[in-house]
């Protein structure tokens, strides 16, 4: 890759604003109660012939009072089963999807595959993980977190990002728990925005 010239001026990034309560209109119109698009973008990650272990991610987003956040939108970004991010390498797997929490129960569900390990900085392997970006009314700047898998204890113990987090209790907030109650292999991952079990959020 050619080096980038050093810019004369670095512009300021456009300021963030909350997605508000009606984010579904733009990003998930069917959930708002109508549809103007023939082709919803981001609705499904699963394509024919996709390699890997299908999994269901599900859970709730909870506020500082423990109440479910019923108007959240989550997006995920992940590698394929071989640890490759999308593009020419990942053979049709986009690696990206979005889902909203339910207006009634506050639950979300994403059908995907379990990602492979990805090389981190300085040649250190990162444990399998799914990047999560979360917006909602009351959230001024989208929150970044990661889903790791509780049944990958050995890889998690060596993960350079998990090891940045002080305290086992806080690290636990990023572990999705295998769950036999749903169809197929499922993992439950609840996001606590605030309070005693507050999820770890990252500055990227």
């Amino acid at each position, binding site marked *: 890759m050619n080096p980038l010239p050093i810019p004369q001026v670095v512009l300021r990034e456009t300021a963030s604003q*909350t997605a508000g309560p009606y984010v579904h209109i733009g990003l998930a119109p069917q959930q708002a109660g109508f549809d103007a*698009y023939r082709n919803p973008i981001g609705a499904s990650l699963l394509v024919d012939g996709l390699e890997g272990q299908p999994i269901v991610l599900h859970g709730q987003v909870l506020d*500082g009072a423990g109440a479910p956040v019923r108007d959240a939108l989550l997006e995920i970004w992940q590698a394929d089963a071989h640890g490759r991010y999308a593009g020419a390498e990942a053979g049709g797997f986009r690696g*990206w999807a979005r889902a909203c929490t339910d207006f009634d129960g506050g639950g979300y569900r994403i059908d995907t595959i379990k990602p492979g390990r990805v090389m981190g900085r300085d040649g250190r392997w990162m444990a399998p993980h799914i990047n999560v970006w979360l917006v909602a009314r009351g959230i001024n700047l989208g929150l970044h977190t990661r889903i790791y898998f509780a049944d990958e204890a050995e890889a998690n113990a060596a993960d350079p990002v998990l090891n940045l987090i002080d305290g086992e209790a806080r690290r636990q907030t990023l572990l999705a728990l295998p769950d036999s109650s749903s169809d197929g292999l499922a993992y439950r991952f609840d996001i606590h925005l605030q309070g005693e079990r507050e999820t770890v959020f990252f500055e990227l």
Partner: protein
Amino acid sequence: MWIPAQSADELYPRDHRDHPPALTPDYKSSVLRAPRHALIALQHSLSEITGPVFHGEELGALDHDLTRNYAHQGSPIGERIIVHGFVRDQNGRPAANTLVEIWQANAGGRYRHRQDQYLAPIDPHFGGCGRALTDENGYYFFRSIKPGPYPWRNRANDWRPAHIHFSLSGTAYAQRLITQMYFEGDPLIASCPIVGTIGDEEQVRGLIAQLDRRATVPFDSLAYRFDIVLRGRRATLFENRVQATQEDL
């Protein structure tokens, strides 16, 4: 396995003075939804510098035209407008092939959303969502109806200024951004608690679209210009940079 030279691909650290803080009590919904712990800063890896790719053929021919994409048997009511501009990165380079998605209320300030109970009526010919991909110059273009202001339950008499919600994909996951665009001259901007979450006047001005008379279509539509800046990639003074300088000589 091929690993890109990550030092050349990292994004500038996000400057949090450019954005609202999480906890902004005048915007009441933030009180129970703002994390109390500090964010943990990550140095970038492939997880942050890569991102989803979108293709023009995934979009419909009218997806960028809100005056027509839900107009079943007539046209929506309201001021016809064009909203257009350039998406660039912090280095001033065009952000090409970026997915721009917008959503908004109708001319009366009512959203087509099952949760919106405001007494202003739904417009049968207006959906309120649009999407486009920026071209190689970072340019995007929408046609729409100017949204109306509306009241909301915050303090007893809070009204949102007219606005259009914008979502931008960027090309790296860490560039992802959602914001709101306001209209030049709207007196409600000054008293809005959501606008007020941004502590910096210059950053607020960056969200206000200017009337663009040159792009206005006579006898058809007024135009507003709204440019957006996404995070840029950082040039490094070591490794690739030094070698390339020597080769250039």
